[in-house]
């Protein structure tokens, strides 16, 4: 299968420090892949390796089915990126910064600069020097440069950094539409878990340099779904009674979980059934495990 991004046994060591260890990533075209990890987990090192900025100590990287060559050679005309904090030449205007990027990307048509300025709502700052921009607009400039050449793959490190709440929504919608309408593959790292949760179609969690879990659409749906948690003094009987009532309970850690929409919408009916059956609930709560909890569980362990 052809992947937009592929790593096989990617490892990067700095002396004794193992920044990234044996990471195998396979990102399909049109996917929005959320890459999560704590500070120093190896997110940026991985992104830099994906962009040919650092050479893997072991393993290899393919982008758009092309192995990255020496000197960082790769299909960069089809890849847009924003690594760590955005940067720009402070003495050049927004337009000039983008024009520099346009030329270095080998795009002849100067109109693409105006288009991307419009798209990232930077028009009123177009002739302002980049050094005078607010952090939010500086981030927009970084995103504009990444999107300038209409890339097939976008690698974005913390794309929502510095943006105000409206900006976060705007960029989320923009990225969503790029993936859905144009089939752009987006590989994004973030600390903002809710943001990743809302946007990503697949999530990878990196911890201490290792990719410790990948959550596909199914797992993410499960994670995002609500459920009714039931506890009772006689858990087994309560479980059987709920089964008999037509629910599909699941037992997990001394708690009964019910995912049926009817149970979630009418927990009072569940309570009534349990009371009538002589196994009254001691706890009844509609819960939704979120990505944050899941992430904290996974990465809470110091090693």
């Amino acid at each position, binding site marked *: 299968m052809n992947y937009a991004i592929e790593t096989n046994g990617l490892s990067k060591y700095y002396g004794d420090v193992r920044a990234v260890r044996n990471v195998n990533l396979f990102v399909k075209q049109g996917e929005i892949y959320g890459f999560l990890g704590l500070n120093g987990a190896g997110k940026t090192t991985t992104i830099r390796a994906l962009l040919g900025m650092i050479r893997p100590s072991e393993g290899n990287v393919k982008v758009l089915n092309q192995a990255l060559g020496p000197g960082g050679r790769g299909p960069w005309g089809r890849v847009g990126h924003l690594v760590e904090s955005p940067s720009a030449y402070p003495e050049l205007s927004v337009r000039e910064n983008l024009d520099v990027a346009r030329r270095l*990307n080998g795009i002849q048509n100067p109109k693409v600069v105006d288009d991307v300025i419009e798209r990232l709502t930077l028009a009123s700052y177009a002739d302002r020097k980049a050094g005078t921009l607010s952090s939010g607009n500086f981030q927009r400039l970084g995103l504009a440069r990444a999107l300038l050449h209409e890339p097939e793959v976008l690698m974005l490190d913390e794309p929502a950094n510095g943006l105000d709440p409206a900006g976060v929504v705007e960029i989320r919608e923009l990225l969503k539409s790029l993936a859905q309408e144009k089939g752009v593959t987006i590989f994004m790292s973030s600390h903002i878990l809710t943001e990743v949760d809302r946007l990503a179609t697949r999530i990878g969690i990196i911890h201490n340099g290792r990719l410790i879990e990948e959550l596909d659409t199914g797992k993410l749906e499960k994670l995002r779904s609500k459920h009714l948690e039931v506890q009772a003094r006689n858990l087994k009987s309560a479980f059987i009674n709920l089964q008999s009532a037509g629910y599909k309970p699941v037992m997990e850690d001394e708690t009964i979980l019910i995912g049926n929409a009817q149970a979630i919408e009418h927990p009072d009916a569940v309570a009534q059934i349990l009371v009538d059956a002589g196994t009254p609930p001691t706890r009844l709560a509609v819960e939704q495990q979120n990505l944050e909890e899941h992430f904290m569980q996974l990465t809470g362990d110091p090693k």
Partner: protein
Amino acid sequence: MTRLTSALWAETLKMIRSKVPLFTALGFSMAPLAGGLFMIILKDPEAAKAMGLISAKAQLMVGVADWTAFFGFITQAVAAGGLILFSITTIWIFGREFSDHTVKELLALPTSRETIITAKFIVILAWSFAMTLLIFGVGLVVGTLVVIPGWSAELNRASFMNILGSAALTLPLMSLVAFVASVGRGYMPPFGWTIFTMVLANIAAVMGWGDWFPWAVPSMFSGAAGPQAAQLELHSYVVVILTSIIGLVATYYWWRHADQTR
């Protein structure tokens, strides 16, 4: 070629928008202006004394007030000042990419890293050449205004070639400055390097090994290290060229292979 043209356009725009051209041009213009002042003093030391200027120092430096001495002074200024001002240009062009964290925008592009570095070196070469022309042009204007005696077309041509030669021997040394700015990822290490090489050049010249020390060669050529230009033989030019090649190869190699973590 299109890629190189694009990279050149980008580097030129960055250069024009910065304050580096202004400051380096001002710095270089100081030399002919100072030379003109010395000429005024030398032409009429009594008047200069009356004005409160100390003429003894000026006489020590250039001797008599004529175009030969004046051009000689400018040639020496290109050798000594060139090392500093060409270095500042190089340090800015390479070092700023690291200090402003813009280097990461130059690494994953359809335009190769080698093309970008080549464009940077071309801009350094072009600006250094422009500065050399500027110092000569300003020198001609100042010398004419001060009315220095002894101008001839032949002297003018020979002096121009000397000034160009002085710059041409200084410029190749910039490749190592570019390398140190890249490896040091910023401004300070190449500044330190420039000062270090200047100090070593002085020591080498004093100890009589200047002709073998590339950083001493430009000042020996210009006569700033004493009337020793005759001592410069083929080996002096070879060490300058070798130093340049080492710097170029190291810079290209580093940009191609080093991990870029900024």
